[in-house]
């Protein structure tokens, strides 16, 4: 019992550290990629780490008309929930259930991940309203609207894939382990592959909204709301929000990797043990970087910021339609064409 608790404790600390370091590293990669595409040199890879270190040294100012308890609690909740998502995601060949990290038991699945992903955003909304600034209030309202907008297409993508896995005869289709062991592409037939590509597009578009990046950074909107939700945050609180953003970046990209690219490198190379775990972790990071490049860096470089009503019509109109078409194709694939199904 004690030994198990200890393992879980060490695992939590390790994953948290990994989430922070990988997230900040990804942010650095993102900034360099964006800078190069904009004909700039860009900051060094260590810049996000330096920023966080500096923020941690600074005072946390609480505005006079803020609600201090809520205002200070929001960043902690956001950070904790963003890191918690990582406990339930497979990082390379480190699966969340079973050894070597038994901290989450057998309870976590995709539904839980979906809910956990909304918690940092909700914490930011609460923090924004608690700031007592009109900019933060407008930002918080926008964040809520954005959340309502992107949750539906995200749910479509996840449910469609899980349903197809269930049809293929797999038990616990929402389980992360099932998804990691059976890549969706090997399960579906040709029609389903088209459906999966459509769902991949939907997920790629949900990512910038989930992470509040251009073109969906309306809740923060530097030129309009000078940071919106985060306008009153400073010092340690802001550092926690930045860290939760970093962890969320890993989580979102990790989710896309889990759903669509769960392959590992170690079986191909015939490795085992610690070596395999290391190689797979590096490969996982590579996949995450590729996903992030296409759904975050590239998009934010080639687009202007949307208005909030455009965000809603884009996600509810276009992406929901694309998602539903993708879902329909997968249903067709699962109901009539059993091609490619080898379970």
């Amino acid at each position: 019992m004690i030994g198990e608790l200890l393992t879980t404790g060490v695992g939590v600390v390790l994953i948290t550290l990994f989430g922070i370091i990988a997230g900040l590293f990804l942010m650095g990669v993102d900034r360099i990629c964006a800078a190069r595409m904009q004909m700039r040199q860009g900051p060094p890879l260590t810049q996000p780490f330096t920023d966080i270190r500096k923020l941690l040294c600074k005072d946390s100012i609480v505005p006079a008309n803020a609600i201090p308890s809520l205002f200070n609690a929001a960043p902690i909740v956001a950070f904790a929930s963003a890191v918690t998502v990582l406990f339930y995601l497979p990082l390379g060949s480190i699966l969340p259930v079973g050894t070597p990290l038994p901290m989450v038991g057998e309870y976590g699945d995709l539904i839980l991940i979906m809910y956990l992903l909304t918690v940092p955003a909700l914490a930011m909304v609460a923090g924004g309203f608690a700031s007592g600034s009109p900019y933060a209030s407008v930002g918080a309202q926008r964040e809520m609207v954005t959340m309502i907008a992107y949750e539906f297409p995200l749910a479509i993508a996840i449910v469609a894939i899980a349903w197809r896995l269930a049809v293929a005869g797999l038990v616990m289709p929402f389980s992360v382990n099932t998804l990691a062991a059976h890549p969706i592409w090997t399960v579906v037939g040709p029609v389903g592959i088209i459906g999966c590509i459509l769902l991949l597009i939907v997920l790629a578009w949900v990512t910038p909204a989930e992470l509040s990046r251009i073109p969906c950074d309306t809740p923060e909107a530097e030129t309009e709301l000078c940071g919106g939700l985060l306008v009153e945050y400073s010092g340690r609180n802001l550092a926690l929000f930045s860290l939760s953003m970093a962890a969320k970046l890993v989580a979102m990209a990790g989710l896309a990797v889990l759903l669509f690219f769960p392959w590992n490198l170690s079986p191909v190379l015939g490795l085992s043990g610690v070596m395999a775990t290391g190689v797979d972790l590096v490969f996982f990071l590579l996949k995450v970087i590729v996903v992030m490049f296409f759904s975050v860096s590239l998009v934010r470089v080639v687009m202007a910021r949307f208005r909030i009503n455009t965000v809603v019509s884009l996600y509810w109109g276009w992406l929901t339609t694309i998602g539903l078409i993708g879902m329909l194709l997968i249903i067709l694939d699962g109901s009539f064409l059993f091609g490619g199904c080898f379970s």
Partner: protein
Amino acid sequence: MSQKKAPYELPIGPIHPALKEPINFTFQMNGEVIEKVDFAPGRAHRGIEWMGMRRNPVQILHLCDRICGICGVAHALVFAQAVEQIADIEVPDRAYYVRTIIAEFERIQSHILWAGVAAHELGFDTLFYLAWQIREESVDVIEYITGNRVNYGIMMLGGTRRDITADMFPRLEQALRYYEGLLEKMVNLFLNDKTIAMRCKNTGILTKRRALELATVGPTSRASGLAMDVRIDSPYAAYGDLDFDIVLPDVYDSEGNGDVYDRIIVRIFEIKQSIDIIRQCMKQMPEGPVLAEEKYAKLLMNLKKASGEAFARVEAPRGEDMHYVRMNGKQEAPEMWKVKASTYSNQMAWVEILQGEQIADIPIIVASIDPCMSCTDRVAVVGQDGSAGIMTKEHLHRLSVRKTRRLQS
């Protein structure tokens, strides 16, 4: 959140990322929609006129360079024209051409600078970096001609301080070719981009009628379809000898309803027009000196004796700049110097074009008239306890009557 009263008040400014210079907006908001707009300029008042009226005209000329950081030559040029009118200084023809060339290069750099700012306000930072990188070339050429990148210091009463000789033409031509090559790309990037069109079309509409009633000037008025340009309406410098047309939004297949998109069109195509004007100037430039009176002491003597008053107008990149100068022949410093910058005429359009728009569009609409607050701010009312007072119309009227009496006596 607790006191949910609609409309609520949203202050923007005096310092805000949407604003490049201090100005204070107060919006009455209903959700994301603007119901009422109010703004208070006067946050960048530097007392330039006050400083000027204690200096001689040559000193003021260089002060004029510093009225605006972007259109440095426009204010110097318009002041020079006013003083030349009073003192009957005959400006050599070549100087007119040099003035025109530098003014047009300034227009190019100002419009590209604006394009970059507009892209940034829309959240399109890639375009912002691109625009400002392109802008470097015009600033380099300006430095090549005048020796300075920002405050050029090339104007002089009675001409210019430096000549543009024939051996400098290849460098100028190189810059013009550079911009010609990029023009198509810029049109494509700014006018064919989906997100920009989505954000700018039908945003911040200023109808032709309202543009006329609000006495807007420059690209702002031209985007609304008003064919007015000081360079054509009352030619100064060498513009009378040159062949060019007023740029209206219909040059690029637009209905011309006076939205932000039309303002982008007008500015981008004015870059093309400026290239054309500079080419013509280089071709037609007559030989001769560029300065009427080389000896400063003699020039200052003549200026001290000069008396009279004059208005001069110049089409700055942002619109019409106007200076009023009055000299009494007794003192070196002018008795009266009044600067009217283009934003002074355009700023009232804000109240009109921001109404009914969304918060998201505030930055781009505010930027769309290319405001320059440090040019515009001529007064700041501050009470002895530091509070900002508001002047009523009657009070201002009384003050102006008193000032007119003082000038007449």
